[in-house]
């Protein structure tokens, strides 16, 4: 985790080439599904609309948070506020103690990764089960998720067969159905015996105090239905103003993430079990978590990233992400949105490396359902990194030097002649920049004559 992107990516491509194959296959599949699904509706108009709703929400976030708090409380939900991961962990520890919790089932939540909930619960002696199949796989493998929507997409069927054979005793050649059935057996038992279910929150509708969760497996519904206590971890930016906003947001999320019309299961939870109900949690808590979000909100160039609905479309569209998967980024959030959010949530210095884990192809901007200007924001992080001298003195010297040369045409033409005179040097591996290029391409091959020369000798006279 401590390793920077550059080294981690290099190592991953060298030592785990199969990850590239798995991730490429999965993301291209997601990407094609999204493209088809966008094509079935007026996606452009929905994206404009959804982007505006989120921008509105962010521009009045304090108002909507207070409204949501009031409505949630009115629904019988206990609301907590956590400024950072330590706060959230403290709140969770208290709840574990208060409700005498020995076993927890978890629905997929990226925020819980930010807050390192699993290691906290283990420290508290609580047994934790990730219940999303992908999350369960990586929990067994003791790895963090590598993708917002498909946490285990870096693993092939064979990887999972070997893992399950070792941990669950399934056959070495078990089918995906058999593997899923094995996980289901373990987790079904966990659902029915857990004391607490922990979920994230895709949306919270402020006007009604409704927590909205989207999934395909049914594990989140079970997590929020079976145990006697339900705790939802919700980023403060996850609000929507109105119930009616869900019509578009739920469909857009599903289409952007996996190309579905709607997630298979959507839960709209407006409080704990009522007296006349036969099942459901007796108590419900919502923890609103800041953990750097208010800093991002204060950053004019980055605040739009808080519109993110965690669909993963930008990861699927990103050709850089596709080569390594999410682990190379060394952060909870990877891909384009990870590059933009991570330095803002954690430490701007992280942009020095993360900011360059991007070829600026802008494919992410083309797909984002809430039109976050990701390439522009990545460039802004680069600008800040360069301004702070993060690239090192050599890089600055090179660009300043280049700028000086090209603003003086005579110098520029002279250096064109040098390029040809010293052509042999361009395959020298020890030269900065040029050596890096040569390693994958061989030496530079300038045209025999520059265009300037062709113009003067030939074209100017025609």
């Amino acid at each position: 985790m401590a390793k920077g992107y550059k080294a981690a990516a290099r190592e991953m491509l060298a030592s785990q080439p199969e990850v590239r194959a798995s991730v490429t296959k999965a993301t291209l599949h997601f990407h094609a599904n999204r493209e088809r699904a966008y094509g079935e509706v007026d996606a452009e108009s929905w994206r404009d609309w959804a982007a505006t709703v989120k921008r509105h929400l962010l521009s009045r976030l304090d108002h909507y948070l207070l409204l949501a708090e009031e409505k949630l409380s009115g629904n019988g939900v206990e609301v907590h506020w956590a400024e950072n991961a330590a706060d959230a962990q403290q709140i969770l520890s208290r709840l574990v103690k208060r409700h005498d919790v020995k076993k927890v089932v978890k629905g997929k939540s990226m925020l819980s990764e930010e807050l390192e909930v699993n290691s906290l619960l283990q420290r508290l002696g609580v047994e934790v089960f990730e219940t999303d199949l992908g999350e369960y796989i990586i929990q067994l493998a003791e790895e963090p998720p590598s993708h917002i929507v498909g946490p285990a997409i870096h693993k092939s069927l064979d990887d999972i067969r070997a893992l399950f054979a070792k941990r669950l005793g399934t056959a070495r050649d078990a089918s995906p159905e058999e593997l899923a059935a094995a996980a289901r057996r373990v987790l079904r038992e966990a659902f029915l015996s857990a004391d607490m279910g922990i979920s994230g929150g895709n949306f919270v509708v402020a006007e009604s105090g409704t927590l909205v969760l989207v999934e395909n497996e049914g594990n989140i519904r079970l997590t929020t239905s079976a145990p006697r206590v339900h705790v939802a971890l919700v980023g403060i930016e996850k609000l929507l103003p109105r119930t009616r906003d869900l019509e578009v947001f739920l469909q857009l999320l599903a289409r952007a993430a996996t190309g579905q019309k709607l997630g298979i299961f959507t839960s709209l939870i407006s409080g704990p079990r009522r007296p006349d109900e036969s099942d459901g949690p007796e108590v419900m808590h919502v923890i609103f978590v800041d953990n750097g979000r208010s800093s991002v909100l204060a950053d004019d160039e980055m605040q739009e990233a808080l519109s993110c609905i965690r669909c993963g479309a930008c990861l699927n569209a990103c050709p850089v992400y596709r080569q390594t998967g999410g682990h190379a980024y060394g952060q909870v959030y990877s891909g384009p949105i990870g590059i933009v959010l991570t330095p803002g949530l954690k430490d701007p210095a992280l942009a020095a490396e993360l900011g360059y884990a991007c070829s600026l192809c802008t494919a992410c901007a083309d797909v984002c359902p809430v039109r976050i200007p990701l390439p522009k924001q990545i460039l802004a992080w680069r600008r800040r990194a360069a301004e702070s001298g993060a690239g090192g003195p050599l890089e600055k010297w090179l660009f300043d030097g280049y700028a000086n040369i090209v603003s003086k045409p005579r110098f520029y033409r002279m250096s064109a002649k040098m390029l040809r005179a010293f052509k042999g040097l361009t395959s020298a591996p020890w030269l900065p920049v040029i050596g890096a290029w040569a390693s994958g391409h061989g030496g530079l091959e300038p045209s025999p004559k520059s265009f300037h020369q062709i113009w003067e000798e030939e074209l100017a006279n025609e």
Partner: protein
Amino acid sequence: MSDARQRILRRIAHALERRWPVELPGDPWRQAEDAAAPTRFVQNATQNGVEALSFDSPQAAARWLAEWAAEFSSAAVSPHVPPWLQPQLPQRPPAEAELGVSRALAAVADTGSVLLSSSEGRRLQLLPPVHLVWVDEAEVVQHLGEALEALQENPPSALALHSGPSKSADIGQIMVQGVHGPGRLVVALVRGLDAAPKATRGKARGKTTRATPSSGLDWNAVRRLQGRTLATKTGKAFEVLRVTDNTVVIRVGSSEKSYTLRRKTLEKAAALARGGAVIQGPSDFKKKVADEAPAYAWAILRELGAI
């Protein structure tokens, strides 16, 4: 943690100080209603992997059910399902039942989804491997927003949208169905779902309220009757010999004849009573519920205060 709350809100307010609020946009684009809602629902739900069916009467639905449900050996049935759409199967708790049966609040054509209320029980919607959901054809709407708005006033504690069978591609991107939730979702649209069929054996009649209330029959209370001697309205004594999961067996003292009363029938009567129907005696029971040992069934329910 109220300090944290204050600090977070202060930071947000500070961040927003210099910004103009962005206006909320007007109404979003909606899909074209190029066919009636039930038709579009069936198309879209089918695409999602739902086994979607339509029936033009409760009778037709009940006939289909009788045959279809034969492949299962047990069911967990929502109290919101009217008696004529309950499968004739032994009842089991959701964790053990092979089939869960729900009554949807509504369905959405755009997305092929059904809306389910927690008031019928969350587990029966999730734990059985197959989930049958009844929807009144009149309650299928075109757009999700319409359905949500209709429920806005008084939403259940957990409203769930189910749009297909539980699935996951987390194992090598190969689609597997039935990971945690039901691997089969069967949605049946029924025209006039709440109108009791006339011609079924039970001759059930009368109106139930639109949202059929739960039967309210506590089966454990029925179990406690085992071994007790009760009397019919006309004073004929009978003994409750045995109470199983799905039946009550009684023996009439004077004739040594025994009768088996079905749980389903008793629940149906209790449900009707909870819905406001008055069942004054055995003949009323025979008319309104079923011609199944009405004198004894009525006496049992009377004893339990269920009618």
